[in-house]
């Protein structure tokens, strides 16, 4: 249980006064906000409670580095601030549970100088029921659920986890996805089982968190077979400038546009074939890696490779995670990780 949230009186009920208060207190993301009045917060809690009616002041998770206690109420306050539509609270609560999982390493994610931001992927029935856009332009802009739920995650990190730039968030440059980073899996357009099912999660709705860089686009307008498309993807993966290069256990997320995915399926490729092919193709000679880094986190077998041997940029095909999102067009993207973090997939639960 956590105590009641502090109530603050604002002399004028105006967007400018609210923004000024937030600036004064070192809060907010710099954009206009919806005032989190008690009435709005109660409405957000009620819309997301379902039949279970969970305790709004129960601590859902403690978020680092501030050790802030995230309750459903404080999550709802940030959801109101972000402009979230009613009903999305279970997605946010589940995402907060994911942020606190030790393998995600939130303290490191928030404290590093790398620009990393948690990407939230929404799966299953929640996509349609809550109005997420899994199709054309899923990364945004233009859909309230994607934009505001992504923004609410960032506000939760700023306010509850204490990830303020310069004090809790040491990112050298930041990145645009630190404002909002939320997409939905396009299961209708995917030729394969849903991503959560492939990870052993059996639930009507689920979320995935992957702490990574902004999306790196790759396009192929011409190819009618998988190889040439994925050869291009492999060149985006095999780059010495990414944190994945010195950390062989780091994950890549490959977000395939439906048309590229359809090309793979037409050739009889399963998701694991895409993973295996990229594992084989995203490589440098081992000597190139060795020449680039003094400090590395590689599996022991990689040390046995000769300088001229082609060494994969990840030590296992399963570190390459594949899902389908987006709409028409011959574009896909790749999202390298921060490195010392693992993605998390959890069922959506209130």
């Amino acid at each position, binding site marked *: 249980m*956590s*105590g009641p*949230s*502090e*109530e*603050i*009186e*604002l*002399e*004028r*009920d105006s967007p400018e006064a*609210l923004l000024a208060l937030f600036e004064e207190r070192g*809060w907010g993301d710099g954009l206009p906000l919806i*005032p*989190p*009045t*008690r009435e709005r*917060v109660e409405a957000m809690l009620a819309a997301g409670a379902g039949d279970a009616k969970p305790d709004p002041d129960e*601590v859902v998770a*403690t978020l680092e580095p*501030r*050790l*802030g*206690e*995230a*309750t459903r*109420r*404080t999550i709802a*306050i*940030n959801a109101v*601030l972000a402009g979230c539509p009613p009903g999305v609270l279970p997605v946010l609560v589940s995402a907060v549970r994911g942020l606190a999982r030790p393998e995600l*390493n939130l303290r*490191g994610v928030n404290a*590093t*100088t790398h620009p990393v931001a948690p990407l939230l992927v929404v799966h299953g029935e929640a996509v349609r029921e809550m109005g997420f856009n899994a199709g054309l332009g899923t990364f945004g802009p233009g859909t309230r659920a994607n934009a505001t739920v992504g923004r609410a995650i960032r*506000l939760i990190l700023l*306010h*509850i986890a204490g990830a303020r730039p310069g004090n809790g968030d*040491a990112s050298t440059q930041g990145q645009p996805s630190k404002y909002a980073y939320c997409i939905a899996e396009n299961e209708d357009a995917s030729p394969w089982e849903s991503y959560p099912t492939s990870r052993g999660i059996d639930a009507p709705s689920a979320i995935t968190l992957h702490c990574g860089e902004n999306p790196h686009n790759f396009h192929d307008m011409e190819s009618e077979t998988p190889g040439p498309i994925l050869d291009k993807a492999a060149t985006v993966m095999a780059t010495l400038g990414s944190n994945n290069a010195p950390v062989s256990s780091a994950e890549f997320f490959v977000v395939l546009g439906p048309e590229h995915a359809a090309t793979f399926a037409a050739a009889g490729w399963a998701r694991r074939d895409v993973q295996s092919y990229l594992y084989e193709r995203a490589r440098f000679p081992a000597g190139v890696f060795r020449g680039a880094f*003094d*400090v590395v*986190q590689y599996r022991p077998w990689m040390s046995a490779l000769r300088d001229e041997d082609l060494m994969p940029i990840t030590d296992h095909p399963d570190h390459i995670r594949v899902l389908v999102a987006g709409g028409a067009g011959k574009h896909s993207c790749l999202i390298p990780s921060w*490195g*010392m973090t693992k993605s998390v997939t959890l069922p959506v639960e209130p």
Partner: protein
Amino acid sequence: MSIRILSPEGHVGERRIPLAASPEVLAGRRLAILDNGKPGAAHLMERVAERLVERAGVVLVGVRRKRTAATPCQDELIEAIAGEAELAFTGSAD
């Protein structure tokens, strides 16, 4: 017209591991260095340790290295340092 809003911060939880009190006298105390792997970290801490050895009579018992700066230190390393030293240096950043 005024308006009342709720704070978005939430309460701060308790630290699971409280910090130990620093010794008042350094002379004769055993010091270990935990290099977190950041460039220059060991160099910086070893130079500071040398000064403490010279000026305050601290005894440097060893330098150990974390697997990576980005994740918590391995338990066995912490136990080893706790067994051999009363003070430890760590935590250099970029």
